[in-house]
C-alpha cells in the first residue's frame, strides 16, 4: 500500500471503514506522522502582505500582494500571490479576469530587465549600462535644445518653446512620478507634451 496518501484520500479510506485492520497493521501513529510530513504549510502564512491597487482600469480595485521577503526592511521580495482586498469599499475583494491574473503581469516573460540600445540601422538591441543610456539621452537633449529652442517669435515676444523634442507621459504611473516628470519636461521648454488620456 502506498503510504503517500493525500489527506482527502486518507479520510476517505478511513471513513469507508476498510480498514481498521489494515491501519492497525500499519500502525496508525505512523500513518499520521507520514501524513503530517506530507501536508505543506499554508503558503501565505509566512509572507509579507502589502496593499496596492490594480494598475489597469480606473475602478482601481484594492489588492493585497503576498511576497516572500519584505522590501520595506531592505530584503529582496518576490511576489507569489495577488488577490482582491476585501476591505476595499469599491471592489470588496472582487477582481475581474485581468486583476485576478495580476501576478502574470508582474512576472511577464517580456518584462524588461536591462537598458537596451538599438543603433541606427541595426536589427537587434544590445544591452547597455544605465550610465551610458542616461548620458546618451542627456547629450541628445542638450544638443537638440541648444539647436532648436525658439527663444523669441517674429514679433520679438519671448516664447522659450522647444518643439523638436516631444514627451509622451503614461497612464499608470503615480501622481508623484507625474509631478517629477512635469517639472523636468516643462523646465526644458518642451511643448510636445501629452499623456494617454485620449486612448
Amino acid at each position, binding site marked *: 500500500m502506498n503510504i503517500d496518501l493525500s489527506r482527502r484520500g486518507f479520510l476517505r479510506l478511513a471513513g469507508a471503514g476498510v480498514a481498521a485492520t489494515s491501519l492497525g497493521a500499519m500502525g496508525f501513529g505512523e500513518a499520521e506522522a507520514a501524513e503530517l510530513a506530507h501536508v505543506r504549510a499554508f503558503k501565505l502564512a509566512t509572507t509579507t502582505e502589502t496593499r496596492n491597487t*490594480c494598475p489597469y482600469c480606473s475602478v482601481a480595485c484594492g489588492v493585497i500582494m503576498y511576497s516572500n521577503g519584505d522590501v520595506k526592511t531592505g530584503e529582496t521580495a518576490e511576489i507569489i500571490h495577488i488577490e482582491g482586498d476585501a476591505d476595499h469599499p469599491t471592489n470588496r475583494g472582487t477582481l475581474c479576469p485581468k486583476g485576478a491574473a495580476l501576478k502574470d503581469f508582474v512576472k511577464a516573460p517580456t518584462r524588461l530587465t*536591462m537598458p537596451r*540600445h538599438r543603433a541606427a540601422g541595426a536589427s537587434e538591441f544590445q544591452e547597455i549600462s544605465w550610465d551610458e543610456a542616461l548620458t546618451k539621452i*542627456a547629450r541628445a537633449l542638450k544638443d537638440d535644445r541648444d539647436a532648436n529652442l525658439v527663444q523669441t517669435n517674429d514679433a520679438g515676444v519671448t516664447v522659450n518653446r522647444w*518643439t523638436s523634442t516631444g514627451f509622451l507621459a503614461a497612464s499608470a504611473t503615480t501622481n508623484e512620478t507625474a509631478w517629477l516628470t512635469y517639472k523636468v519636461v516643462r523646465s526644458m*521648454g518642451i511643448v510636445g507634451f501629452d499623456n494617454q488620456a*485620449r486612448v
Partner: protein
Amino acid sequence: MTNSWTDINNTDLVIVMGGNAAEAHPCGFKWVTEAKANRGAKLIVVDPRFNRTAAVSDYYAPIRPGSDIAFLMGVIRWLIENDKVNHEYVTNFTNAPFLVKDEFGWSDGLFTGYDEEKRDFDKSSWDYKIGADGFAEVDMTLSDPRCVWNLLKAHVDVYTPEFVENICGTPKDKFLAICAMIGECSAPDKVMTSMYALGWTQHSKGAQNIRGMAMVQLILGNIGMPGGGMNALRGHSNIQGLTDIGLMSNLIPGYLSIPTERDVDWTTYMSTKGFKPLRPNQTSYWQNYPKFMVSFMKAMWGDKATAENDWAYDYLPKLDVATYDILRMFEMMKQGQVNLYFCQGFNPLLSFPNRAKLTEALSNLKMLVVMDPLATETAHFWQNHGEYNDVDSAAIQTEVLELPTTCFAEDEGALVNSGRWLQWHWAGGTPPGEAKHDTWIMAGIFQKVRQLYQEEGGVFPDPILDLNWDYADPAEPTPEELARELNGRALQPVYDPADATKVVTEAGKQLLNFSQLRDDGSTMCACWIYSGCWNENGNNMARRDNSDPSGMGVHADWSFSWPLNRRILYNRASADLQGKPWDPNRKLIEWTGERWEGVDVPDISPTAKPGEVGPYIMNPEGVSRLFTRGMMRDGPFPTHMEPFEAPIANALNPQLRGNPAARVFEGDMAQFATSEEFPLVATSYRLTEHFHYWTKHNPVNAALQPQAFVEISVELAEEKGIANGSRVRIWSKRGQIWAKAVVTRRIRPLTCDGKTIHVVGIPLHWGFMGAAKKGWGPNSLTPFVGDANVETPEFKAFLVNVEPAAEEPVA
C-alpha cells in the same frame, strides 16, 4: 466622474451609452448590479452592439456609430415637449434664463461665424447680452425669445423621433421607450446616472456627445445628486491623475493653462484670468487663479520666482498653436521636424491612428526613448516581425533606447481613480533585474542635463539651472517628498485674511488645503486641486477607514478625494433653491438656516445663502451651462455631425464632412474614404480579458483570449460568404489587417437614410510582442483626425471593407 463608483448604488436608472462598463470596468459595474438588486434600479444600454452590459440591461436599443448627438438632442426635444423637466432646477441652476446676443444663430448644420477656409468659427456672437451694470441679462420667466431655454427649444426642434430613427437607425418605438424611462427621472425623487467611456470620446465631435448627455442631466436636475451625475469611466488607472497634474501640451497642474504667444507678459496673461462674476453675489471661484498660479511657479522655481521677475514667467514656454498634442507631434515627425521623442509607459504605435503613418514618423526620429515595464511594439517599431511589422530595419536610422521601469507592484505613491479618489499604494516586490523607478530615471536624465548646462553653458539654461530640486537624495526624490509638494507648504507665515495678525500656517509647515494659498509668494503648491492630500495631519491618501455611516457610499475617511475630500461634485445642487434636499431619502447636504451641513463636504462656501449664491461656484454665472458661450470650438449647443468617414451624408447639410471645426492635416484628408469605396462602418472596443496592449504579455490572459478577431452580423457574413471562425481580411483606405471572423447576432444591420448599414466590430488588444498570438489592432485602419476640442482620435466610427481570406498555413 462627478460622483464615485460606490455612489452608483444610489441611482434609480443607469444609462450606459458610449461605453460598455460590464466588459471594461467589471468591478465598478458591480455597483449597477447592486443598485438593481437593492433599489430596483433599471439599466438602459444604447450601443451598436448587444454587448455584455446590454446582456444584463432592462432595455437595449441599437445605434449607428457616430450618431449619438442626434439621439441625445432627440431626447432633449422629447423631454421638453412632454414636460419632463425639473423646472426649478433649470430656471435657477442653469443658464436657461440668460439672454443671448441677437447675432447668434444656427442654420444648415452650422452656427454663425463659420469660415470654411480656416475650418473655424468666429465665436463673437456666441455669448450673453451684457447689461449696463456689467452683468449678463436674464429673463427668469423664460419668455424672452433670446433666452437660452427658447434657443435650445428651437435648436432641438429638428430632432424628431423620425429624424432620430433615420439618422441613428434606432427604431422609433425603442427610442420613445427610452425617452419615457429617462423622463421619469425629472421627478425630484428619481435620479438617473450616465456612465460613458471612449465610445463617446473617440469621435471628431466627442466632447459634444458628452455635452449632450450633460444637458439631459441638467434638464432632469440630476447633476449634483447622489446616484446622478456625468460619470466618465476613465480607461487607465491614473489617467485622471496625469490629466489633473496637467501632463498635456497646454496645461499647468490643476487645470491652469500654459500661456500663448498672445500673453506677452504676466500682466497680459493674468488679465485673461479675471473671472469677474457674471451675476451679482456669485462665487466665481476661479477668481483665485493668481493664488494657484503663483504657488505653482514657486513649486517649480522656488526662490528664483519672485514678484520682481513676474514669478519667472519667461521660464514657461508660450504656445503658438492650440496644442502640440500627439497627433500634431506625429504629423511633425512625419515632416521631419522632430528629432527626439520619449514614450513613458505609452505604446503609440498601437494606440494612435493610421499605423503606417506612425511607423513612417518614428523612422524620421534621430532618437526614440521608451521607458516601460514591458517590451512594447513602439520600442520595437524598427524590428521586422514578418507581416505583423513588415519593416526594413536597415533603412531605419532611428536610435532607440529601451529603459526598464518598475511596475505598480514595485512602486509607491498615489493613483487617482475615476471617482477622483487619490489612493496611496505601497511597493511589495523587488524590481526585476536592473528595472528602475520612473522617478529615478527622470531625476537621472535631469541631473545629467543640468550638469551639461553647468559645465558647457548653452541656450537659455536658466529654467533648468533654477528648477527647485531640494530633495534629500537629488538622484531619487521620494514619493513622500513629491506628494508633499503636490499638497503645498508655507514658505513664509500665512496669515488669516480676516485678521492680519493671526498666523494660520507657520513657515515650513504643510498647508491645510488650497484655501491657504496666497498670490504673494508666501506659499508653494504644485497642484492646487490636490491640496489637502498631505497636510499636517499626514498622508490623507493612505487613510483606510472604510466605514460608511450614512449608508450612501460616501466613505469620507477612505483615501482622499479631490477637491477638499469632496465625494460628489456640484453637491450643492442636490438641494433645492431653499437648500432642502430634492429627495429627503437622498440627503447629502442641507442648509440649516445658518450653514451647509451633511455627510459630504459641501461644494459651496459653508455660509453661502441658498437663493443668493448659485451652486456652480466655478462658473462666473453661478449656474451651469446649457449654452456654452464661445468655450467650445464647434458650437455652444451640440449639433448633429457625421464622422469624417460616414455611410450617409449629413442630413442637416450634405456639404459638411465630419466636424467642420476639427483640425485636419494636409494629406490626411486625401486618406478619408467615401462609402462608395468602403461601405461598412467599423468601430473598436475592449474585451474583459485584456487591458489595452499590456495583458497580451501575460500567459493567463493570452490563453483566455489568444487571438485577434472581428465581429460581424449573420447578414453581412451571408452577403460576403464568410463562415463563422474563418479568416477574413479587413481593409480601409489606410491599411489592412487579417483576423478570425466571429459571426454573431449581437450586431444587426441598421437602416439609415434608406440604406442598410453593416457594422464591423474590431477588438483592439493584439500586436506583435508578448505572449498572445500575433495580430493587428484597429489602428492600422483608423483615420488620422481628432476631436475639434481635445484631439481625441476618431476610433469609434470609420469605414472599411471585409472579404474572406485564405486560412493561415498550419505550422
